[in-house]
């Protein structure tokens, strides 16, 4: 079964410091990995994704993530956090549709609440 783990429910960081939000996954096959962000009372917004190629993926708002196949991880990073980055972050994984399935469904982690304090 496919699964995504976000081991930290909360991450707190001071503005201007680097931030990391962790994600590990377990899939039977090659994964496609995504990060979404959710601001209060809003829908999920796409940040970035890893499909293939360079393990370091750059996305919106200065975020980046590194795919590590040996550690089955896809941690989200930003060199210098902003107060406006405070939000709920979701990691998600999907697979290429395999035999018997026509859907590249997304499996989500439980989310990590990021708080950046001034």
């Amino acid at each position, binding site marked *: 079964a496919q699964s995504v783990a976000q081991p930290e429910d909360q991450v707190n960081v001071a503005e201007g410091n680097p931030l990391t939000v962790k994600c590990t996954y377990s899939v039977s096959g090659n994964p496609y990995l995504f990060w979404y962000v959710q601001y209060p009372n809003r*829908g999920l917004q796409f940040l970035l*994704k890893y499909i293939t190629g360079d393990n370091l993926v750059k996305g919106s708002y200065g975020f980046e993530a590194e795919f590590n196949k040996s550690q089955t991880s896809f941690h989200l990073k930003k060199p210098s956090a902003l107060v406006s980055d405070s939000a709920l972050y*979701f990691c998600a994984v999907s697979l*290429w549709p395999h035999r018997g399935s026509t859907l*590249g*469904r997304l*499996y*989500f982690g439980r*989310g990590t609440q990021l708080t950046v304090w001034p």
Partner: protein
Amino acid sequence: NAGVTQTPKFRILKIGQSMTLQCTQDMNHNYMYWYRQDPGMGLKLIYYSVGAGITDKGEVPNGYNVSRSTTEDFPLRLELAAPSQTSVYFCASSSSSGGADTQYFGPGTRLTVL
């Protein structure tokens, strides 16, 4: 370009009532999805559709029904609402079912069943 829109934004239902959550996308996407988000949990797939007239169950379909008569619209029907259906519901769409395609989400409907 509005993307994915959902109505209503909030709703309170009594146990046993029914309602339809509306979802519309203007990106001409073939694939549409309904998720629910419970507190402290990730999103779980309720139903999905691969095109007009074609729908299928996701992880948690019990208590829900869907239809897809047009490419743009994908309503979710709750019959006989139960407190366990209190949740935030998100609709999403993507251009194909390939696992690499980004899903785009609506703003959500917050439903409370009392």
